[in-house]
């Protein structure tokens, strides 16, 4: 039985608390009276995930028939799936997607279905390389489908293969992958790492176009998503739900969603998942050996070590059938793992940012992604109200080097150097610069033919933090490269003590402090 998450009140006897710090760690002594939110321990995984998948496909929820009765010879079947942005870190083989799709294809084979295509639902993310696809789907699927062109990666700029399904009453264009929309059955396979993922958002981001995405990926939408980790209170989800319902009226969709536990790090990093006072001699030795050796290796090497980590996360639930009924169950299962009750907001929110976010698998967590991870994802890991009060301070710990992956994030470089040099106001950025980046032929070329994120993706990173930027009074980055931190309009500090002193200028003396001990991931239920 796993222990639930809880809030620790720091006193003089509390040991230093672990902060992730990019490709490294810091142990920080928090002032007495601070609170630390600890995630729940990993819940027990499914004993027989393959059996559970079969059961879910044969016993769908909502208004849906069992999968075998939806499959017949001569039909056109499309299976779309989440891309490698989830889970984080990439999970040890076999990935949930491989398990699910193999069983789905087994049923399709039994029904005599020949016309099958698999689509990786990238949205505006970069294409995946062959090894990345093999890791996600397994060699069996890759070898059977990729050589015949039956495993494709969604291209949001291939206008010949996009089709406008219609417009919602609010005027939102629903433009999606033609193959998916013109199929007799569209199966979407999802890995729900956090509550933001899944439901209608899967198709509406994964296999749609920029014209469609801009209706919900915008500053106003993000500022009215409180938070985007809580779908009922998220404008991002309201919009995708409206659009998704329109699609569901046009295409038969069979949604399969899986959830994972938070067994995030392999045994050599098990100390990252334990509460500090429970570290054994082995954990302490591992921590010292790891952190000391990482201090002496170049960031490039440290990065490659960390990106080699494959998480031992395991499936905790699988549900299939009609999109909304499936997603309601998924959220229940996610909350079983993630929810931690927290009372009241703090003046200062501290967080240690790890090496990895959804957009830098096998890549660099550049300063824009640091902002997105801290102010976008970590800040929004709440339900109810934010962990920090309006006008409070967020302190993040990360090296924040002025460093970008030139192949994966080309438009980020220009965004950082040109756009942020002029303004950091999301509304002004959106109005003045978005269109030119989104339609830039060079970025489009790199997105379609290289391994680059779409030109507009850098903007979305900034918008993801728009709610936090509107809410907090100051953002401080501990240990960050000063010029990169200042470029984003934040303040650099060399130690946590300095950062807390700086925060006092904004929130007054003796502020209340909450630290989120994340990852592993949790969702604060703030009352």
């Amino acid at each position, binding site marked *: 039985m796993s222990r639930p998450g809880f809030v620790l009140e720091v006193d003089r006897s509390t040991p230093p608390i672990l902060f992730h710090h990019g490709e490294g760690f810091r142990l920080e002594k928090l002032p007495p009276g601070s609170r630390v939110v600890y995630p729940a321990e990993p819940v027990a995984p499914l004993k027989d995930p393959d059996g559970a998948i079969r059961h879910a496909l044969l016993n769908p929820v909502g208004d849906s028939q069992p999968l075998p009765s939806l499959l017949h010879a001569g039909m056109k079947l499309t299976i779309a799936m989440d891309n490698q942005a989830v889970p984080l870190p990439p999970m040890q083989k076999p990935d949930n997607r491989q398990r699910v799709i193999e069983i789905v294809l087994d049923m399709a084979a039994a029904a005599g279905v020949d016309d099958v295509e698999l689509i990786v639902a990238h949205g505006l993310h970069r294409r995946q390389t062959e090894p990345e696809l093999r890791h996600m789907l397994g060699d*069996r699927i890759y070898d059977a489908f990729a*050589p015949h062109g039956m495993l494709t990666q969604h291209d949001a700029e291939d206008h010949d293969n996009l089709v406008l399904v219609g417009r919602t009453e609010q005027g939102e264009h629903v433009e999606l992958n033609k193959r998916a929309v013109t199929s007799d059955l569209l199966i979407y396979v999802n890995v729900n790492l956090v509550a933001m993922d899944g439901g209608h958002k899967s198709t509406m981001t994964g296999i749609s176009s920029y014209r469609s995405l801009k209706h919900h990926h915008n500053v106003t939408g993000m500022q009215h998503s409180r938070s985007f980790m809580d779908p009922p209170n998220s404008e991002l989800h309201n919009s995708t739900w409206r659009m998704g319902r329109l699609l569901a009226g046009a295409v038969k969709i069979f949604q399969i969603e899986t959830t994972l536990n938070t067994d995030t790090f392999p045994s050599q990093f098990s100390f990252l998942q334990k509460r500090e006072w429970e570290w054994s001699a082995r954990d302490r030795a591992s921590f010292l050996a790891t952190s000391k050796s990482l201090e002496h290796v170049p960031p490039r090497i440290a990065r490659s070590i960390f990106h080699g980590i494959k998480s031992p996360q395991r499936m905790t639930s699988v549900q299939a059938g009609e999109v909304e009924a499936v997603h309601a169950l998924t959220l229940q299962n996610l909350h079983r793992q993630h929810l931690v009750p927290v009372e009241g907001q703090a003046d200062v929110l501290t967080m240690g940012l790890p090496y990895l976010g959804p957009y830098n698998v096998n890549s660099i967590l550049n300063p824009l992604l640091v902002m997105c991870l801290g102010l976008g994802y970590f800040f929004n890991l709440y339900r109810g109200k934010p962990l920090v009060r309006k006008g409070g301070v967020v302190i993040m710990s990360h090296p924040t080097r002025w460093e970008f992956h030139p192949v994966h994030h080309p438009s980020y470089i220009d965004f950082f150097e040109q756009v942020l040099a002029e303004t950091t106001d999301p509304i002004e950025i959106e109005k003045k610069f978005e269109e030119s980046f989104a339609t830039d032929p060079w970025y489009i070329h790199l997105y379609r033919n290289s391994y680059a994120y779409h030109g507009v993706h850098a903007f979305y990173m900034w918008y993801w933090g728009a709610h936090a930027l509107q809410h907090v009074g100051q953002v401080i980055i501990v240990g960050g490269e000063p010029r990169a931190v200042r470029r984003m309009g934040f303040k650099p500090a060399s130690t946590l003590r300095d950062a807390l002193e700086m925060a006092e200028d904004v929130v007054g003396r003796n502020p209340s402090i909450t630290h989120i001990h994340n990852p592993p991931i949790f969702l604060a239920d703030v009352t």
Partner: protein
Amino acid sequence: MRIGVARFPLGKPNWPSSVPRPPVKRRTGVDYDTEWARTPAARLARAVIVDDVLRPALHVIASPTVHGADRLVGLEAPAIFVANHHSHLDTSVLLTSLPERFRHKAIVAAAADYFFTSRTKGAMSALTIGAIPMERTKVGRRSADLAAELLGDGWNLIMFPEGGRSPDGWGRAFRGGAAYLSLRCGRPVVPLYIEGTGRLWRRGKSWPKIAGKGEGVHLVFGAPMWPEEGEDARRLAARVEKAVAALADEWATDWWTARQRAAAGTTPALTGPSGGAWRRAWALDADASSRTGRRSWP
């Protein structure tokens, strides 16, 4: 009186001819006692032999590549590993390719009439690969009891249900031993397909040859199979045989094609086409030559 031989009571007494002699206790064949080979000292020695001698040697000789090991994720030991059988290399390739949690507590059902014909040969087999003697013509009580007892003690069992190496490159019908043990002990059968060992060391050759470029051995793990409700050993054995044939098809084509053919019941049989010997050899050759870089049997 013979000189030089001590007499009773110093020497052995004569056996009275009127008293029937008890049957001589055989200590070879199926009666060879392999218990010593499962003591901690012998297991340690075997672990060293398997990991530090056999694995590197096989890497040079056969360059084995493992496919589908992910199908074993979450499978708890013990299990019964069942494969097609073309060569003496099969056992070593399979044993060294098993995930560690299975490999170091594994026994191999070896033909009692081949590997245990002498005590030295039996000792070598028991020590190096953890062989236990198994009658290949029937499920003998002694060998079946021993295998069941060891499965019950948590030992993984490797079996080749064809009952011997292929004489001509095609497989033979699976016998029911593995299925019987699976039903009796309630443990899963893991089907495997081994490809290419026959090219390197076929039946009748004294020594293996070293794999050239593109001639390496491939081993495909299948998903564990549990006995179904009301299934008997014969039906389970037939299902296992089909699963191995589907793995062979998966290797020869691709996973999706193999699944489609398995669903349609058109998976090519391991046993090859019926007909004269030359036609079987011909078909084997045609099958092999269609695959780039893979040479025909032998």
